[in-house]
């Protein structure tokens, strides 16, 4: 079953799985932008932008923050 080359056996166990409870956080930026009830409105306005526009642009930051956090928390120990 396993790959025939047994190289770098010591590193294998730590990097062999990418399961982590942190990954569940990724659902936030997937679900949040798909709920129009939150962003489909005009007020409050920010810098003249209706909520529809500034809130969806702000979700980009939510996405970046989440993927960065998950990456940092699941990175293999002693990462580069």
């Amino acid at each position, binding site marked *: *079953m*396993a*790959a*025939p*080359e047994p*190289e*770098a056996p010591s*590193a*294998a166990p730590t*990097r*062999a*799985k*990418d399961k982590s409870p942190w*990954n569940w956080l*990724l*659902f*936030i*930026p*997937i679900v949040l*932008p*798909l*709920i*129009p009830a939150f962003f*489909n*409105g*005009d007020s409050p*306005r920010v*810098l*003249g*932008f*209706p909520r*529809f*526009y500034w809130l*969806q*642009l702000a*979700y*980009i930051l*939510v*996405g*970046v923050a*989440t*993927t*960065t956090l*998950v*990456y940092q928390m699941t*990175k293999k120990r002693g*990462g*580069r």
Partner: protein
Amino acid sequence: MWQDHLTEIIVFTALFLLVSAMGFVAARWRAPKDMAHLDEWGLGGRNFGGWITWFLVGGDLYTAYTFVAVPALVFGAGAMGFFAVPYTIVIYPLVFLVLCRLWSVSHRHGFVTPADFVRSRFDSPVLALLVAITGIVATMPYIALQLVGIEAVLKTMGVTGESTLARHLPIIVAFAILAAYTYQSGLRAPALIAFVKDTLIYVVILVAVLWLPYKLGGWGDIFAAADAKFDASPNPNDGILLNANNQLQYVTLAFGSALALFLYPHSLTGVLASRNRDVIKRNMSALPAYSLLLGLIALLGFMAIAAGVAPLPGATEGSADSNTIVPVLFDQEFPDWFAGVAYAAIGIGALVPAAIMSIAAANLFTRNIYKEYLRRDATPAQEANVSKITSLVVKVGAVACIVFLDPQFSIDLQLIGGVIILQTLPAVALGLYTRWFHRGALIAGWAAGMGLGMWMLYQVSSPTRKHFGGSAFPLEKFGFDTPRTIYVGIVAVLVNLAVAALLTLVLRAAKVRDGGDRTAPDDYFADEGDARVTPGERSDAGAAPEPVA
């Protein structure tokens, strides 16, 4: 009339020639010992780091057509066109883990295309062929659409003549240059040019979103002008906010497009060319910078309304080419030299994705049709050669589409492309997680999703067209008593999944033989630095084990 645009034309041409030269020089950039291998020509040596991947994938996903068509959609329909923002937010967390698995398994087995993966995972040349053909068919019109992006710019500069040949000559020349340097340098050419393209785009857009609102009286005035325009229009579904009837369409279109984007072979090309899993994960956090850019670009549509831009006339009498609104806005509001820079950004922006797409389509043909069916013992050098020639053929085809067919036809095909590429989701994306599906069931699911998707698209009418009028399917055609619409692709892929799942149960119960699985569980976690050679015994009898990196 082109004399009025002389400065713009000079700036545009100078920048265009600069990147063309870069395209040819790119062959020597990070030069390999031997370019005659698909991993070198088609994947740039599989060794791109974080920055190059960022520019390459960003330059690939956010195409010239996007930059032209998204503001055009916002200009015409308002809030609905903003779906591009949630679409490009959702995609990165969605594929964060999926692409890492694909990278690992491809790295271990030397896969170049998604169909290569399907071939091994499900032990099914037929399913792989379907995935490959779906990919090629979906990608071709996408390349043609890049030409629509360049054409919008050329039209605004007045360099397009009246006769068919005069109208298309500049594009034919541009594509001939593109074809020549892609042939020579492979994926290295778009990777290098992407630096210039994206720098230009970022500069242009930052200037536009700071300068134009200042000139047009601020964001409040811009939104007020847009609101006034949509209030006056007879269309019930436009406006600066969504209404009760198009929210479902907005959400399903954003989600469906996100699912589709990374199934396109050209997006996977950029991912497979990266050096390791870390590069991919870091890019999932960094690529949304482009989403912010895209959101700002979308708002150019509203600025065009506030500035009173009128689109240039279209190909047929009395029609308007809404794709010209951004170039016209720049022409109207910017000094000539800066408009020239902006046009170059769009024009070059078309070349990067067009090159990557043609490479991806060529790789699919080479690996999954040529090598599978025509010449099983092809050497890596022959593979690279076939890919190079196919990339030329693909570009000639794309130019022919634009010259001989109504551009509307390419837009229709692109619409269909998004729906059909989604039908490879169960085999490619779910296949990365589970081998549960029966290969026969996947084929049946693909056929069902394809058939339903086509039928639904055919049923969609628009004010100007009876069929293929868009991707918003009215639910009342399914017998529901509602004016709501839904994105065709989502319905088609759900049916595809349901058929694949049910038939898997049936085929298992009937004990119909399924193929094997040539991948091992730990293939999906392999990273840079681990064993790099394709295991000989388990791969195709005809294929020699070959180094991957």
